[in-house]
């Protein structure tokens, strides 16, 4: 199962795709970081893979 992540360009915090997809648009979870992260920031092939296999990323 591929594990897809996105790295915040401002603080370096790494966020799993399941967290991004849950929120679609979210404030970076890095403390004191105001950067905004979006599911759409992921490369298209990663987004497509994630959405095609979405049920496997849910508990």
């Amino acid at each position: 199962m591929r594990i897809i992540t996105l790295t915040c360009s401002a603080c370096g915090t790494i966020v799993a795709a399941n967290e991004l997809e849950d929120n679609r648009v979210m404030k970076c979870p890095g403390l004191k970081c105001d950067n905004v992260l979006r599911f759409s920031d992921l490369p298209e092939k990663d987004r497509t893979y994630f959405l095609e296999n979405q049920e496997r990323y849910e508990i």
Partner: protein
Amino acid sequence: MKGVLLSGGTGSRLRPITHTGPKQLVPVANKPVLEYAIEDFKDAGITEIGVVLGHKGRDEIQALLGDGSKYGVDITYIVQGNPLGLAHAAGCAREFVGTDDFVMYLGDNILKSGVADLVNSFESGEYGAGIALQEVDNPAAFGIADVDEHGTVTELIEKPDEPPTNLALIGMYVFSPAVFDAIDDLEPSWRGELEITDAIQHLLQDGYEIDSHVVTGWWKDTGKPEDILEANRLVLEDKQLTAAGIIESGAETDGRIELAQSSVIEDGAVVRGPVSIAENTTIKSGTYVGPYTSIGADSTLDGVHIENSVVIGESTITASGRIVDSLLGRGADIESADNLLPEGRRLVVGENSQLKL
């Protein structure tokens, strides 16, 4: 070599303590459990650490550890979100780890011997992974490793009916980057998680050798209140304790006592170590603090007898009774009901609390 420190989980077995914070920040001998892991990494020469966060306690953990500079390490945060298993947590660290080997450490575990021996054993050969093992009395209740005469793992079996050894996996691993390809090939288990034992089994099937290191000192998973008390006892037993605070002339002290500089043991109090007393805490006359007790910061104890217990901090305890084998959350106050009518105990108790009266 990098470090990956797993700090997710709900801490459900530690409720109500974990209603207000992550289990990894519960103190043992007045130090959050997570800090022991950071120190173990540093002692093993690992200063680049990825801290994997779940849903609970993200801000509190980041506020405590910061960028790691106060510990002499460099911390990157990795948000796993859903608890999809240890292999998923490791997989989330792929970009952080890059082409390095890495140690994966469960953030609610404390290990007497640290991780340096595990790392040295792994680095002595060409291994795909290394696992820490410990001999247990009831191997059927654990994930068990079968090993050959050189300590190389031949098989991993989850809770076997007929265990081939009594060597249980204790949640401390070293991995080469090859594990990430193994994780890519995993499917979720029956419980919907990517299992780290499946990833190791996959490495074995791909022809990688798996090293094992048998841990001889104590190891403690601090997931339950009784585990916190035992970890507290084990750490106090080993830790060098220094009394920098004020011990008044009429106070009776015995054994090893850690007393913060701003704390006081007053005339008429009795303290028998090993005991740890944190900052701005007063042990008043008529109080007895017995062995294997840690009293957190900003607390006052007056007239109580307490032993083998952990008081997390900001507590006022003035009851005249005896408190033993107890874990008291931050800000918990216990007062005397003497002289109150009607007679009886008066409780304001949160969800999931446990009382034995």
